[in-house]
């Protein structure tokens, strides 16, 4: 079996003890002022301006509550043909993120519990299955 390849390894990684890719952790950051953000960056804290060692990697759970959803009917970029659905999720660990709903997810509505998973989105040139983060209703 070919190994999997993550589409955006700077933003998330596969959780341990899970070769099926069902668990994903997000690469967020935490400032010494307490502010938690996503994704990790070292330019400086948006809340207090601290930088350098003040900012450290902070793993975030991909569980959260749906704030909003929108199915996009028109999109100019041919690489991402519409329709697709964007979700806005308040992560249990703090940050609010916006990303794609899994193609096979049931319809979602604000207030529902959702969870991020790694889903196959294509094949790399060397034949690996490429995985990207997608949300769906929490099981």
């Amino acid at each position, binding site marked *: 079996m070919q190994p999997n390849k993550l589409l955006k390894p*700077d933003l998330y990684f596969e959780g341990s003890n899970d070769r099926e890719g069902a668990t994903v952790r997000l690469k967020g950051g935490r400032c010494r002022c307490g502010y938690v953000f996503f994704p990790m960056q070292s330019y400086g804290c948006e809340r207090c301006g601290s930088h350098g060692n003040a900012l450290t990697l902070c793993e975030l759970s991909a569980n959260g509550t749906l704030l909003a*959803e*929108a199915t996009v009917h*028109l*999109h100019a970029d041919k690489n991402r043909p519409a329709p697709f659905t*964007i979700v*806005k999720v308040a992560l249990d660990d703090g940050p*609010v993120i916006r990303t794609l709903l899994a193609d096979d997810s049931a319809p979602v509505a604000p207030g529902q519990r959702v969870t991020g998973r790694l889903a196959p989105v294509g094949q790399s040139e060397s034949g690996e299955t490429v995985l990207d983060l997608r949300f769906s209703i929490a099981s």
Partner: protein
Amino acid sequence: MTRSLNELRPVYVVGIGWHRYQNPSETPYVELGLTAIRSALADARIEWPAVESSYVATALLGMASGRPMLRHLGATGAPLMHVENASASGSTAFRHACIEVASGISDVALAVGVDKRNPVRRSDTGIGHLAEDAIVPFTHFALLTNEYAVRHNATAEDIALVAVKNHRNGAKNPNAQRQQERTLDEVLGGKRVSGSLTALQCTPIGEGAAAVIVASEDGIRRLGIDAGRAIRTTASVGRSERVYPPGTGFDAALTKETADLALAQAKLAPKDLDIIELHDAFTVEELHYIESIGLCPEGHGVRMLKDGALDIGGQCAINPSGGLIAMGHPIGPTGIGQIGEIVMQLRGEAGPRQHGGARTGLAHMVGVGAVCYVHILQK
């Protein structure tokens, strides 16, 4: 000690002009801009050499577009600067023209906005993102529409009524890109864009130009400008996004803090406003922003809309120009065109879309980033 605009010497809008906002065409930007500037000079009844400084607002024309346009007015050697601040470029140019005159550095300044619909190019920050390439502005606001509808139990029909009103206003505005009344069925039945947003609930980005001339009392006297048609800028505030509590919509929060500061500067309450021109690029924004400005409590915007309180002739006319939805949003000109509309209304020169007895108007723009600019004008 720092001071706000209205603590400096008074500054007045004395001339307004446009090139109609329109669908993309072959017309060069130079012609669009010159049409608006000459129209504003004619409105003020002054000649170009009287203008001591120019602020050129443009987001999509590229570097140094001002001088190839302004030279055709007769090269006076006066300073000019370009202002790019996304959708708020025009509002920002107006603020700095006002500051220059209020500070006493110049007596007469021009703010002109001009743009063509060119591709938007933004530089990479070096920070990755999950799917931001899939979330264009209409989807950002489709998400806010979904949140607003669920939180306040508003239907897609309720929110679409904003577009019905603004198309009705735009139909009476010869400078509007869209000049056609639309029924609720037409608005809802149009092309679906994102979430519950349809094409007629979204601004039609186009091209055009808008210009305003501002002057001090010294300038007005020296040039023999009709002081009876001059409208004073009594507040100017610019802000940028802060970190708000998780789940708080930054669009509404930023508008609230900016509008609160502007109202305090002019010593006014929201109920004193007769006219508001605001950033209704998408229908839900109008509801968010009237609530943020304080016309009504959060979630009560639909009720005001249905009661006709936001119509021309109502309690406070919102977007009598047609707003970004109907008048259009050529980017650079938009914030300057709002000022022109308010001046026209406060002079009582708005013809079929005149809001009777208008004495106080507020102009509001947000720009991606996010930034927010609010100005108040008073008769």
